[in-house]
């Protein structure tokens, strides 16, 4: 196997490898700005320079020349090389800043140059705290600057498109954003304009940067040049907790991170998963954060004279029990939903089958033509395949109103039938409608009893993507009943761990009075007289996995370790 020596340590590699990526894969650190593993290599930032040499091979003796000490004679290249674009070669010797004074000097020099015209407005810059330029300047930069002139001034606050704002002065011309629109989203909407130190990225005149993936450029921007209009100046990075989760606005199962402060999700960013979404996510999916914070159903409500009135959980359970008893379980229409998790749907289905009901129905939420073959899918729901895996009865969207017409009591779990136009508001007249949902929507407004359930940002639960990949979410924000301190599934941020009493970051604002649907259903089950006791959704999932063959052997831990597991395709594609 081919070998390469980096800072006097021998590594083996196979096939073609670029030195920078290879070093990163080994856990070594070489600073860089313009390089991105999913895009082409322009080698323009010149920050990843390394000293490179090759052993002298003697063709006559068919071996490497050795010096007096028996070491290979190394002939170093006269110039420093950019490790990002450098192909590893057998026997190559690489010196990074760890062993080379020349490289340390070059890194300092490059950073000094980059900072010459950079505004250094870190205190008010959104990128501060997660800024490669800030971090690398701290680690590898010069002690000060010898630049004593007025900086080049460039346009600021340019609204490139509906979602992205440019500060051209902060830009270091790495061209990541330009390459993203050329190579990943393929809209070619950005280019670098002007020349030399006046360079900055822009759209063509009178064109708008409305790429459906435009916000990814904000993520990959190594400085604060590109910011999201939506998130600008809303939070400092270190004030937020970062929680891995799954996108619920589509069927792709895009891996995301939820960023939470004061129990509000402030932004959603993509999380790398090479098998699903690489480093990217569509802009539309980022907007889901609003639904996690706003227009939430908090505490159970009875709708009396079309006005929602607060009620207790006990009263809510009692009402459901009474209504079902009154009409008989056979006259209840029960709807599960591709918009919520495996656990919630399983619990709902189980409750009613135990009562002698034929089980929960569900219908898909497809919008033909909204998929793009990349990360957007026709499927608007995150768990259509999950409903199929569970064996819920799939009905066509136009059959929903027929099913409701035949029933006296309607139980709907997190599916806005009215808002989607599957039924009219009046179709629910004369029925007793129980809506278990996260948000106030048209269906909630038409219901008689509202029971608030947790959204993906508040619970640990699993979802199956259109490609049959089961992945799970983690609770990112607290509810009235959950706490970061006691819930072991919840992430703990920097301030949780290291904050002092001066860092007033914990508060009880914005906590929604809701519970996971499976927990509510378990409570209902005990009212109906049988037990569905699970301490956590983790335990519930283990139970489901033991019952459903295609999920056997899968657990939360396994999903976490393998970044989601593809379950057999047959189980997810059957249609009713």
């Amino acid at each position, binding site marked *: 196997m081919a070998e390469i020596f980096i800072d006097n340590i021998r590594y083996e590699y196979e096939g073609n490898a670029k030195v920078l990526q290879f070093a990163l894969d080994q856990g070594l650190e070489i600073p860089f700005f313009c390089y991105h593993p999913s895009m082409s290599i322009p080698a323009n930032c010149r920050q990843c320079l390394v000293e490179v040499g090759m052993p002298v091979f003697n063709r006559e003796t068919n071996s490497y020349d050795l010096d007096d000490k028996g070491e290979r004679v190394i002939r170093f290249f006269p110039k420093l090389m950019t490790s990002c674009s450098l192909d590893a070669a057998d026997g190559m010797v690489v010196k990074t800043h760890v062993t080379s004074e020349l490289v340390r000097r070059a890194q300092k020099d490059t950073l000094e*140059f980059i900072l010459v015209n950079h505004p250094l407005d870190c205190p008010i810059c959104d990128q501060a705290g997660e800024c490669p330029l800030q971090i690398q300047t701290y680690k590898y930069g010069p002690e000060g600057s010898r630049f004593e002139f007025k900086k080049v001034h460039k346009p600021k606050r340019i609204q490139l498109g509906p979602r992205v704002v440019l500060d051209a002065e902060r830009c270091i011309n790495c061209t990541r954003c330009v390459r993203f629109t050329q190579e990943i989203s393929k809209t070619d909407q950005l280019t670098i304009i002007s020349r030399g130190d006046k360079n900055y990225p822009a759209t063509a005149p009178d064109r708008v940067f409305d790429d459906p993936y435009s916000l990814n450029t904000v993520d990959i921007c190594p400085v604060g040049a590109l910011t999201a209009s939506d998130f600008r100046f809303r939070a400092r990075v270190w004030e937020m907790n970062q929680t891995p989760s799954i996108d619920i606005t589509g069927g792709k199962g895009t891996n995301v991170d939820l960023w939470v402060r004061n129990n509000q999700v402030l932004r959603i960013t993509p999380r790398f998963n090479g098998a699903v979404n690489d480093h990217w996510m569509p802009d539309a999916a980022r907007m889901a954060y609003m639904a996690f914070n706003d227009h939430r159903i908090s505490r159970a409500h009875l709708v009396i004279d079309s006005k929602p009135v607060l009620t207790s959980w006990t009263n809510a359970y009692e009402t459901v029990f009474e209504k079902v008893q009154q009409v008989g379980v056979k006259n209840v229409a029960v709807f599960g939903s591709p918009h919520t998790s495996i656990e919630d749907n399983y619990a709902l289905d189980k409750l009613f089958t135990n009562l002698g009901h034929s089980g929960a129905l569900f219908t898909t939420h497809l919008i033909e033509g909204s998929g793009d073959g990349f990360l957007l899918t026709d499927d608007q729901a995150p768990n259509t395949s999950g409903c199929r895996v569970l064996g819920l009865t799939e009905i066509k969207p136009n059959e929903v109103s027929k099913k409701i017409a035949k029933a006296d009591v309607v139980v709907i779990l997190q599916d806005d039938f009215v808002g989607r136009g599957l039924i009219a508001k009046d179709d629910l007249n004369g029925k007793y409608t129980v809506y278990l949902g996260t948000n106030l929507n048209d269906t909630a407004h038409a219901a008689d009893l509202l029971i608030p359930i947790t959204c993906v940002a508040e619970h640990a639960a699993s979802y199956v993507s259109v490609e049959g990949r089961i992945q799970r979410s983690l609770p990112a924000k607290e509810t009235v009943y959950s706490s970061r301190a006691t819930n072991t599934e919840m992430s703990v941020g920097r301030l949780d761990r290291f904050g002092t009493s001066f860092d007033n970051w914990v508060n009880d604002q914005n906590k929604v009075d809701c519970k996971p649907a499976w927990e509510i259903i378990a409570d209902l089950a005990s009212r109906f007289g049988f037990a569905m006791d699970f301490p956590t959704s983790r335990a519930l999932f283990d139970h489901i996995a033991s019952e459903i063959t295609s999920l056997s052997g899968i657990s939360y831990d396994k999903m976490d370790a393998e970044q989601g597991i593809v379950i057999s395709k047959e189980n997810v594609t059957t249609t009713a």
Partner: protein
Amino acid sequence: MSIDWKSYKPLLIPQIKGLQNLDVYEQHGGYGALKKVLAEKSGAWTTDNVINEVKNSGLRGRGGAGFNTGLKWSFMPKPDGGPRYIAANGDESEPGTFKDRQIFEYNPHLFIEGSIIAAYAMSVETVYVYIRGEYRSWINFMRKAVDDAYKKGYLGKNILGSGINVDMVVHSGAGAYICGEESSLMESLEGKRGYPRIKPPFPAQRGLWGRPTTINNIESLANVPLIINNGADWYKNIGAPTHPGPILYGISGHVNKPGVYEYPSGMLITDLIYNVAGGIRNGKKLKALIPGGSSTPILRADQIDGIGMDSDSLRTAGSMLGTAGMVIMDEDTDIVDVLWRISHFYHHESCGQCTPCREGTGWLEKILHKINHGDGEMRDLDLLLDLCTQMEGRTVCALADAAAWPVRYTITRFRDEFEARCKNTVYALS
């Protein structure tokens, strides 16, 4: 080295009236080399033989780097049936350089003939001629010449019944120095922003549209018919042995007769200034000269004695041949002002792709502007040299070097003049 330049008859731009017209060019033996090659394409002039002849002639690229042209041709991979290109570089954007436009204006068919032979030798069917955008008239001259060559069957399909096809496209640049750099020239031809590409891969491996491409200077290609007509041995004996052939010297600045002069390579600089260009104007004394375009290191008057205009000789003097665009400066020249002006140019023309050049060129200019206005301090000179070190060899293309060298060499060779302009740096005792 003494070169008999007085009896030299120009070969690239002979003194023939109307030579830019195809009929006159033909009357004087024009396209003879092409006919000769095509007539014996399976005999004496196979593609390999043409390449070897050019290689053996010792012709070195006239664009500045001085690489053996035939050797460069031999790097082209074997034809695989796909397209291959020649890009003729007529961007001519290096300050002090204005030689190729003489070819465009006075002898375009010599260049066209050379390009067709080169295309044949490398099995290329498309030649792009990239001409500096500011050369409006010269682009028109070239377009007319190319049209005429098409009409006479020298270009196009089945040239002179030989079965060889060569198309020639005249392309206008849009006013960027960087597009004279071969890889950004290719980007520009492809319709993209003129950013240099990283090497490897080299153009012969992946050039225009990812296909094998050779980039040659206009003057280099114009030399090819001469080599074919007279043989490599004849060519080798013109001028300096390691850098043979006729050279178009572009002489500008404080001389009595500035202009483009064709003489053998290796001409003594003193001959060129005092005999060819009529000496320094107003009887002044020579102070300095830039031998081959603004990026080549400046030479003091006391450094040029016995130095010829070829790469080896100039290297001993501490400079380079470059494009042989000589800028002559007399004793009244303010060298600080000159350097500021050169730095201004490189600041203006840096494409901005790589950090050291993008930021360094601007910084250099700002310091030099300060010094030029009498506000400089002694320590600024050392900072300038430091910045040169930080730029040299750290970028994708050679523009950072081109911008740093004038600063480095002008300061080291005229340090006293810079110091005279600078205030002493005084540090408080602490």
